């Protein structure tokens, strides 16, 4: 371990010493990258780790000489989780800052609001939001990409696992936000295709203080499992209520939004036994050594925790994927919007925090359900689901 640590330092010093004279002798024009994240407001739990992550990457890459000698200049705006402000920020990035490429926004609703803007301006956008609608139909989304797994992938992964365990009747719950509604749609759409029956379909608001009524209704049905689709405090509340109502004999599945360890902490002991599909970035220790993502995930975890002294959340991983994909494109084709778009569209085998991306003209997400690992909460931590 010690030797390995030293090896990293030697390599880093080598890179820096190679890159330094290059960047010192001639200061090349910076490459601009626009970014819009929901750093404050209701979706700040998404935007804040994303901002921290991209700041960290920009700092690191500029320390070692930038992209082909060009320093990376990040132009970052906070949309305050507001659609209108998001549209304004993106317009400003395009018209005033003249960035060749944009990463973000953090929210699905905000991304959908700017799809037309970037398509008209012909500026590629790599979104950090999950909804499938962001990249479909791909004909109308020529300039839009996204790095998070689709809710479709998460639903497929959960349904696979349910069927493997002989569960055919489920109850679903969702929060009445874009994330919840989109997940609910996918749950309802895919269920008949795989032969799963949905016996209850419950909803609740993002600031609700109690979800007991919905769960009680589910208790009155013969559901064999509950699938809950939400982010924020309500997903903790749902688990707590489920536990307090003594419903632990009906297994509880969360969406991939349950990715933060903080959620387990907040739920107290109540999260024990809760399943959820997670991107591997959340579980660096559980990823097998031969997995291609192992290396980048360990690197990110280490760097993030050293810099910010807090556990990373899976959402920061989207920031990492988006920015590194863009850096990769800039390195290959330079700051030309059209070339960046074409490059990303044909990029395959890009190893990121949330999966191995294989983009194509028909798939602007580039991931499959294999980007997820099914995990279960065990002794207050994640464990691979049996």
């Amino acid at each position: 371990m010690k030797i390995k640590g030293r090896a990293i330092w030697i390599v880093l010093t080598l890179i820096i010493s190679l890159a330094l004279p290059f960047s010192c002798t001639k200061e090349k024009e910076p490459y601009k990258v626009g970014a819009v994240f929901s750093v404050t407001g209701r979706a700040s739990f998404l935007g804040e780790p994303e901002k921290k992550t991209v700041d960290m990457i920009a700092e690191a890459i500029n320390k070692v000489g930038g992209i082909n000698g060009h320093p990376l200049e990040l132009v970052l705006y906070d949309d305050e989780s507001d659609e209108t402000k998001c549209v304004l920020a993106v317009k400003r990035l395009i018209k005033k800052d003249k960035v060749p490429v944009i990463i973000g926004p953090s929210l699905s609703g905000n991304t959908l609001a700017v799809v037309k803007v970037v398509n008209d301006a012909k500026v590629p956008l790599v979104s950090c939001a999950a909804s499938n609608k962001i990249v479909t139909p791909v004909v109308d989304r020529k300039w839009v990409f996204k790095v998070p797994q689709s809710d479709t992938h998460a639903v497929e992964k959960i349904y696979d696992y349910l069927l493997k365990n002989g569960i055919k009747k489920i109850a679903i719950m969702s929060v009445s936000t874009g994330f919840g509604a989109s997940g609910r749609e996918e749950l309802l759409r895919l269920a008949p295709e795989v032969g799963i029956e949905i016996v209850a379909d419950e909803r609740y608001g993002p600031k609700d203080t109690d979800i007991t009524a919905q769960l009680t209704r589910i208790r009155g049905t013969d559901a064999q499992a509950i699938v809950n689709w939400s982010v924020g405090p309500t997903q903790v509340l749902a688990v707590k209520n489920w536990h307090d109502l003594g419903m632990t004999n009906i297994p509880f599945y969360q969406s991939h939004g349950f990715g933060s360890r903080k959620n387990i902490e907040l739920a107290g002991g109540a999260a024990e036994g809760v399943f959820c599909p997670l991107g591997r970035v959340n579980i660096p220790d559980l990823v097998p050594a031969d997995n291609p993502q192992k290396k980048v995930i360990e690197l990110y975890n280490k760097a993030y925790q050293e810099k910010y002294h807090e556990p990373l959340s899976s959402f920061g991983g989207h920031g990492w994927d988006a920015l590194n994909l863009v850096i990769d494109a800039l390195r290959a084709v330079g700051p030309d919007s059209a070339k960046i778009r074409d490059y990303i569209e044909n990029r395959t085998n890009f190893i990121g925090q949330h999966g191995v991306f294989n983009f194509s003209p028909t798939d602007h997400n580039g991931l499959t359900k294999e980007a997820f690992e099914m995990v279960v909460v065990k002794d207050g931590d994640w464990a691979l689901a049996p």
Partner: protein
Amino acid sequence: MEAPLGGGPKPGPLGPDSLLWCETFLVMTKITLAGQLVQYLFTGVTVGSIYAMVAVGFNIIYNVTDIINFAQGEFVMLGGLIMVFFTVTAKLPLPLAFVLTVAAVTGVGALMERFTIHPLKNASVLTMIIVTIAVSILFKGIAMFIWGKDPYIFPPFSGSKPLFIYGAAIQTQTLWVLFMTAVMVVLMTIFFKKTRYGKAMLACADNPEAARLVGIRVNTMILISFALSAAIGAVAGAVMTPISLMEYDRGALLALKGFGAAVLGGLGSFYGAVVAGVLLGIIESMCAGLVSSGYKDAVALILLLLVLYVRPSGLFGNVEASKIKEF
């Protein structure tokens, strides 16, 4: 390892007797309709009690000043988060933490009055209402800086093992919420009916000019009304947090629901606020359980509109009094 799915009970974090507990539960997994109704009722009354406390807070200030204090929800939020600070961070015993929390938020309420409402000597009521909106945004911002954006929680007052009534699971914290609401109602009744200050406040509510003429210090009464509202908000926040978690921006929605309850009960009516708050909670919960959880908030609001259409002064509001008031 065998998959713990679809099969028997799994020993969870419920303690040594959890297996037994789970087994008895397996038999009655499918809850009866009666059980469901009991569950909805309890959930509704609990949530409703919180609305009621917020509504009472609105009314106390409204009665004395005609102001709708939109920072009322922020008092609840502060109550919850300060309670988390005293119990989890400072590790104080629960009763002490509770008293300190209520005292701290009461102080915040009093300071709010001294620094924002008091200096505006001849401002219109509307101006002062707008000031309270500003204060609520300020409180939210300060809370965000202190606690960040994550939700917080502290353990329930007396264990997390639920009680079972007709197959409905009742969290013990729920009983605390009901108990505190009842205590609040009793104490407020005594305060307004028996004490000099309470009577003086009622006098201010009736006619501030006449109250001033007979020697009541209206300014002091306004200060007390803010402090009292803040204290009630703090109690609500402290008892609800173990059930529902608390984060910096929870106040607005609570204020909205509490305001709905205050209007439904008739602005200014103390018992009206309590009844309407509980009613609103029950309707929401019943609707979520029996009709559709998607329309829960809509149904509550439609009912509010209907009541106001039939009785513009609210369920228990005084028609005569509401004509004199500015709002």
